[in-house]
């Protein structure tokens, strides 16, 4: 029998634990694992990723805009200090309802990255302790710059 890598073992294990909540879980290449979950189970799985699967080291977070499909994807980059592979933990949001529970209750260091996603994409994170702009000026009125339909500061949409 071919011995399985930590990445494959993780994917099988998380699929077995949350069969209904996971949209996709795959090993993209060695050291890269991608998991996409349903929004309703997003925080619950995040907690178990930290407590049971050992992803104690938060790396980053960011979003992606797909206006044609009317959705956005929020991605969190997480690392397990033992097995050392990069997990991208994604969740899809409808562009009409850009609300997500804040991940800061699980990994507090995600704070900066959620503030950035908030100003750049307009996703609101419920329960975030300090939702002020991170990079843009406090009086910025130009919209959300990293959205695909952003036309420039001061341009009315």
């Amino acid at each position, binding site marked *: 029998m071919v011995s399985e890598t930590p990445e494959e073992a993780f994917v099988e294990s998380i699929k077995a634990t949350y069969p209904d909540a996971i949209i996709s879980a795959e090993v993209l290449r060695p050291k890269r694992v991608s998991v996409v979950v349903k929004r309703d189970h997003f925080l619950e799985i995040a907690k178990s990723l930290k407590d049971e699967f050992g992803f104690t*080291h938060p*790396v*980053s977070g960011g979003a992606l805009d797909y206006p044609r499909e009317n959705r956005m994807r929020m991605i969190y980059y997480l690392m397990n200090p033992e097995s050392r592979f990069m997990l991208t933990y994604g969740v899809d949001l409808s562009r009409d309802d850009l609300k997500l529970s804040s991940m800061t209750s699980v990994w507090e260091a995600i704070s*900066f990255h959620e503030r950035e996603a908030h100003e750049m994409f307009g996703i609101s994170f419920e329960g975030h302790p300090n939702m002020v702009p991170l990079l843009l000026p406090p009086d910025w009125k130009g919209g959300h710059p990293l959205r695909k339909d952003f036309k420039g500061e001061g341009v009315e949409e």
Partner: protein
Amino acid sequence: MTEPVIEPDIMRISWGPQHPMSGQTRIIIDVDGEKVHRIIADLGFTHRGIEKILEKRTFLQGIIPMERMVMADTPNIGLGYVMAVEEVLGIEVPERANWIRSLLCEMARINSHLYAFGLQAESTGYFPAVFLWTTIDRAVILDLFEELTGARWSLNFFMPGGVHNNLPEGFEDKVVKGAQYLRKRFEDYWEAMVENAVFEMRCNDVAVLKPEDAIRLGATGPVLRGSGVAMDVRKDEPYAAYADIDFEVVTESACDVMARTKVRYREIVQSLNMMEQIACEMPKGPIRKKVPLFARSKAGEALSRVETARGELGVHMFTDGGMNPYRVKINSPTLRNMYVFERLAELDELLVADVPVVINSIDPWYLDSDR
């Protein structure tokens, strides 16, 4: 009659945004007398929208804005982008090109750490001479860069498929000579600065970051290794030629400012060894695969990770089949360490005079955190 509770008088000091030690940012320090009550990092003064710019450029054009993230460390930053492009376009790199990449990356790491080391000396207020020494000595590295690439700072030397030029004749010998010279100079640094009693007083047991806190707060690079956690992308998933190069992951167990300074010092020594090894064992062969100027990608994604001087850089590139990336997410090392810096005021007792020492111990580069 009970005594009235005296609320601590909190005073707010704004440090910056005009160049507080290094780069443009504002550090807000709430102090209670001399004690630091809270630190707030007000970032964004140098936000240039690199992620948005990259969406509008072809894969090849993107190298130039990307490298502007950290001028002292352009090869490492550029390599993160180039590796992501190579993965989405499916390009293999010749072995010699990988070795040249590793050579430049290590030289840039020395250059960047020298700057950090000099600033650390300056920030204590006692060693302006060491800052001048490091500035003079980094010219050795910059001269080598100039001879190879024509540029001293922003090299733009890596491209998808390899590197721009071959090494000039006799370049390997000059690399070995430069490494030997720097190693000799480094003994002076150790005696003049690291072992100096004044420097020890300013840095020992200041801003202690325990290993579990470093992991929990997402620290990276020398900050994480200064807390005794041996995490280094070069070892965890070797890229370029690092699988064939001998080096050890430097860690220090003291977890304080001194530990982070020592990690940088010892990493420079490791990099000098690597420079010599690469110069002696450089394989022969082609330096570049031919790649079309306007390459078209398939729809997909690639996440590359490289260890820059400040820590792990991640470039997550999404493509939709066009000639430019659909989205590039840059996981910047300084942004992660700035969060750690904010929390340090709560984890350890800091005095207001410690703040410059502490912020230099995380080696911030605000162009990197702001992108």
